[in-house]
């Protein structure tokens, strides 16, 4: 499969570039190499949420049973989103300790990822409460869509509640990445590699879900 081959090319390239090609940043030093793992993980946690939302919408809008596997897709995407959000939080906290002196500072990005984790945690709590109920797919899809509706409001609110400590080169008002060309290229390759890895893992999880469903159907027969 093409995506598998691309993951096997891009992931080692991203790791090698992060450690051997990209120079250490002027003030941040060698710790700046965390950028090539922390930023893609945070990006995937948000992308996974968006993919979950779109899959949930397709699942609910599907009256002709064209997207029968969407329930597995949005659930698996949420699982991957939770994992990457935890990893992004952990890698960000380590970096924050090194740069700002404490693991947690309620910076807007830290706050946003906590909210995302809260949404994921609420989603999984709801899903456990609906175990064995036929409406489980529809209700959890509806919850994902409602949470997704509330998300743009966070973008408006959070920066007004908490001042930002995040470095200006990546997150700034003019929406441009102010990095050296080697660092920018490494970050780009890393984001592409991690995005491909996300779709690759999602496909594997979806395949596992299909096998599990088939085994359950056989078991009931």
């Amino acid at each position, binding site marked *: 499969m093409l995506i598998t081959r691309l993951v096997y090319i891009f992931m080692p390239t991203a790791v090698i570039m992060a450690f051997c090609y990209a120079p250490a940043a002027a003030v941040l030093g060698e710790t700046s190499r965390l950028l090539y793992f922390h930023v893609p993980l945070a990006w995937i946690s948000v992308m996974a949420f968006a993919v979950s939302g779109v899959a949930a919408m397709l699942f609910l809008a599907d009256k002709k049973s064209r997207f029968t596997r969407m329930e597995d897709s949005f659930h698996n995407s949420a699982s991957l989103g939770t994992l990457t959000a935890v990893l992004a939080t952990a890698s960000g906290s380590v970096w924050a300790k090194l740069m700002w002196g404490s693991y947690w500072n309620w910076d807007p990005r830290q706050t946003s990822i906590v*909210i995302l984790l809260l*949404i994921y945690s*609420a989603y999984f*709590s709801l899903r456990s409460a609906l175990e064995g109920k036929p409406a489980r797919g529809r209700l959890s899809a509806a919850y994902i869509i*409602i949470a997704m509706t509330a998300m743009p409001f966070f973008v408006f609110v959070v920066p007004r509640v908490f001042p930002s400590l995040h470095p200006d080169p990546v997150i700034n008002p003019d929406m441009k990445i102010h990095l050296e060309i080697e660092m920018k290229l490494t970050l780009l390759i890393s984001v592409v590699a991690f995005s491909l890895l996300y779709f690759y893992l999602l496909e594997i999880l979806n395949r596992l879900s299909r096998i599990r469903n088939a085994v359950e159907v056989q078991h009931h027969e």
Partner: protein
Amino acid sequence: MLNAIISNIVKDFRIEFRSRFAVNIALSFAAITTLAISLTAGGVRLGSQTQAMLFWIILFFSAMNGLAHVFTREEEEGTALFLRVTSPAAAVYTAKLTFNIAVIFIIAAVISPLYVFFLNVDLVAPSAFAAAVCAGSLAIASSATVLAAIVARAGGRGSLFTIISFPVVLPPLWVAIGATRASISGSTSTEGVIFLLAFSGALVAVSYMLFGHIWIEE
């Protein structure tokens, strides 16, 4: 459709008037927490930010006790099936939303004077305070109604409603706290109120679209 909405609203208010469960529980909870804060504060005058935070925490958790009841009652008493058969989903949602807005407005109307009285709040801009409380309450009711329907279908389990509501209600809660703090300090800015009304509108619109999927049995 209009008749179905009106008859559902009348039914919900009649049942609530007989048992007064949702309002009684929410008001008792609100009164206890307000008194507990006042007692433990020991007469100390709190800052406007702390006052606004405590006020909305009381209102949020009091509302969480009452707002889910409108749907869980239908499931517990076995009347949900009849409601599905006799009324269109949109009419049920509209009636339940109206009922929940009324419940949270009653809770806010009781908590606000209690809170101002027991915590010695000096309201410099009372009209801005009232606008912030009304808009914030509307935003909580708008988001909580559809989530109450989901929780009722999940068996109405204990704290699940608070767990799934909190991440969704967090933006209006933040803004309502900011608007309340500003009103206590004397500001009459309407930015927060407009945000809360926009949030309510967005959540109600999405809820209308989703409610059929949540409510109807397959």
